């Protein structure tokens, strides 16, 4: 990323509430017009970071720079950021129209301009006909759209979204995800989106920061987070993954040789992770593993093994196979698409099955 393109810079931001430290030295930069997600389990500090960006809380240490200006001490009402709250926070004594126009009321613009802005947003959010409805009488999806329209009405530089889809049911959530993405692309505003739902973060974002325990574990594109997680924690948080123990034998010129009880000595075209003890973890995604005939030799470029089937689960378009590896007994999950020639049909709990995966799909983690 070009340095001139940094719209939001977060430099060494920490936040402590009494003795509880919510954020521990966060460094981030977010580009203009980017859809950026803060992803993590509850209590990881993602909402605190969002509140610091919105000005509702001051960082205990570090700086927040938005569009080149340090905003640490700028109160929310003087910031060019707007927030979509988790609980929507719609004003119950005002109707839909007045809620959307709430922030515009003080702005120095003609009444006609304000009305045009509000009506434009009502069209964009498909709220036509609900202008004079009491906000308490709206459905969850409608409230969500009013909250979004209200925040966008002020044409903020940055829109902050605090788990805005959390309260919606699955179907509505999927719909709102698509809408949110489309709206973001249309208005071109930088979105900072907080969520604990990794699928949602992946579906929406240009980049995602994964937070654990007040620290950033990894910042990357959704594709890289999934395919190239930098730690076991990230790998396990984003989707499911199989982990095996291994011992580092040698690492030269970007190739690493590892020894493991299940796969023998294998060589992977990947730099070794830093490991003091020489022990490391190998990881492979369930859908990257294929079921083979038991005892079949590994094809070139693939790593093969055997295990006992411990569970089988049919899910329509795919099946889940749980194996216990022959040597170590470590569990291995495999997801197999249910195509007509699927090997899965010959499997049964207790039988021995072979499996293989491409050597390039194997990840080496600390």
């Amino acid at each position, binding site marked *: 990323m070009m340095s001139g393109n940094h719209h939001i810079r977060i430099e060494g931001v920490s936040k402590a509430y009494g003795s509880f430290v919510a954020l521990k030295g966060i460094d981030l930069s977010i580009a203009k017009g980017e859809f950026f997600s803060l992803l993590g389990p509850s209590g990881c500090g993602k909402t605190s970071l969002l509140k610091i960006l919105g000005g509702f809380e001051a960082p205990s240490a570090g700086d927040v720079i938005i569009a080149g200006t340090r905003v640490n001490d700028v109160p929310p*009402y003087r910031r060019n950021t707007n927030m979509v709250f988790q609980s929507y926070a719609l004003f119950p004594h005002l109707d839909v129209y007045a809620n959307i126009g709430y922030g515009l009321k003080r702005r120095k613009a003609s009444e006609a301009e304000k009305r045009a802005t509000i009506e434009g947003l009502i069209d964009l959010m498909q709220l036509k006909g609900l202008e004079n409805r009491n906000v308490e009488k709206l459905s969850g999806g409608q409230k969500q759209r009013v909250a979004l329209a209200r925040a966008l009405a002020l044409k903020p530089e940055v829109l902050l979204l605090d788990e805005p889809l959390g309260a919606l049911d699955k179907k509505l959530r999927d719909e709102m995800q698509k809408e949110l993405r489309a709206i973001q692309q249309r208005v071109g505003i930088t979105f900072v989106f907080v969520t604990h739902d990794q699928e949602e973060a992946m579906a929406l974002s240009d980049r995602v920061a994964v937070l654990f325990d007040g620290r950033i574990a990894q910042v990357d594109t959704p594709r890289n987070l999934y395919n190239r997680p930098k730690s076991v924690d990230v790998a396990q948080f984003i989707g499911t993954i199989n982990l095996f123990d291994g011992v580092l034998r040698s690492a030269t010129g970007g190739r690493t040789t590892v020894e493991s009880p299940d796969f023998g000595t294998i060589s992977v075209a990947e730099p070794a992770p830093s490991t003091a003890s020489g022990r490391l973890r190998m990881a492979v995604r369930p859908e990257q593993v294929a079921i083979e005939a038991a005892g079949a030799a590994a094809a070139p470029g693939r790593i093969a093994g055997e295990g006992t089937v411990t569970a089988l689960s049919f899910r329509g378009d795919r099946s889940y196979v749980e194996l216990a590896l022959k040597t170590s007994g470590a569990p291995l999950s495999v997801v197999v698409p249910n195509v007509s020639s699927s090997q899965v049909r010959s499997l049964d709990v207790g039988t021995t099955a072979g499996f293989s995966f491409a050597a390039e799909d194997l990840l080496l983690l600390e």
Partner: protein
Amino acid sequence: MTTRTIFAASGSRQGLLLTAPAVLVVSGIVAFAFASLVCYSIWTQTYLDMDHTPTTLNYQRFFREPMFLFLLGKSLLIALGASVITVLAAYPVAYYVSFKVQRRKLLWITILTLPFWMSYLLRVFSWKLILGYNGILNTGLGTLGLISAPVEALLHNSFAVVLTLTHSWAPFAVVPIFLSMERIDRSLLQAAADLGDTPLQAFRRVVWPLTLSGVFSAGILIFIPTVGDYVTPQLVGGTSGIMIGNLIFAMFTKLNNWPLGSAIALMSLLAIGLIVFAASRLLGVHKVEVK
């Protein structure tokens, strides 16, 4: 209907069933008292006997003799003054406890209602001790050399009545206002700030309209009983602080004219009802939904 079916009934129906006994008892008693008042007001007292021939003479007298209307008007004004001052004084207190106090809010509210643990009579009487000719205030100011002679204007007037009523009823005002503030979702204030409101603007545009129903119920709660109060005016009001309640009290006791007393009481009731109705219209409280 068995117990089972009562509890299986829909929410509103179940609520109705559960409140029915209390509602019946209370409305029965109120209806009886009200009917008695109406009956008395159209009868005539003839020394020791009651003339039961229906007549509007008591009402005619109420409107003909200026003293009655004057006293009613004065009582309404004193009650209005006491209500407004009490609500104005209670609002910041409720605001402080609701928005600024982080822990032990209940303890604060309990302490604020502490004056209520004492007899109403004692509370009123203590003001007599403070404001009296040889009272605490006069003695204190005299000792400090701020006044050369005790001030007589402190007691036995409408000011003393309003002051005493304000003090007596303050807890009644704090609680409904506090409750209406507690109901406000705090993220609304963040949302207002986020949308550009300074704290003062957010107060005016969010907190005030959302607490208006609490303010109104606090006002009503004080206004209604203070119009007819006769203890405070009698103890601290003197002759110039007399209110309609004292007159009604006298009618039912010393003057032994229940019919006229009833007519005055009903006219006071009507006046209060009209004022409360007009005020609710004026403030637009009927539009605010109570959750």
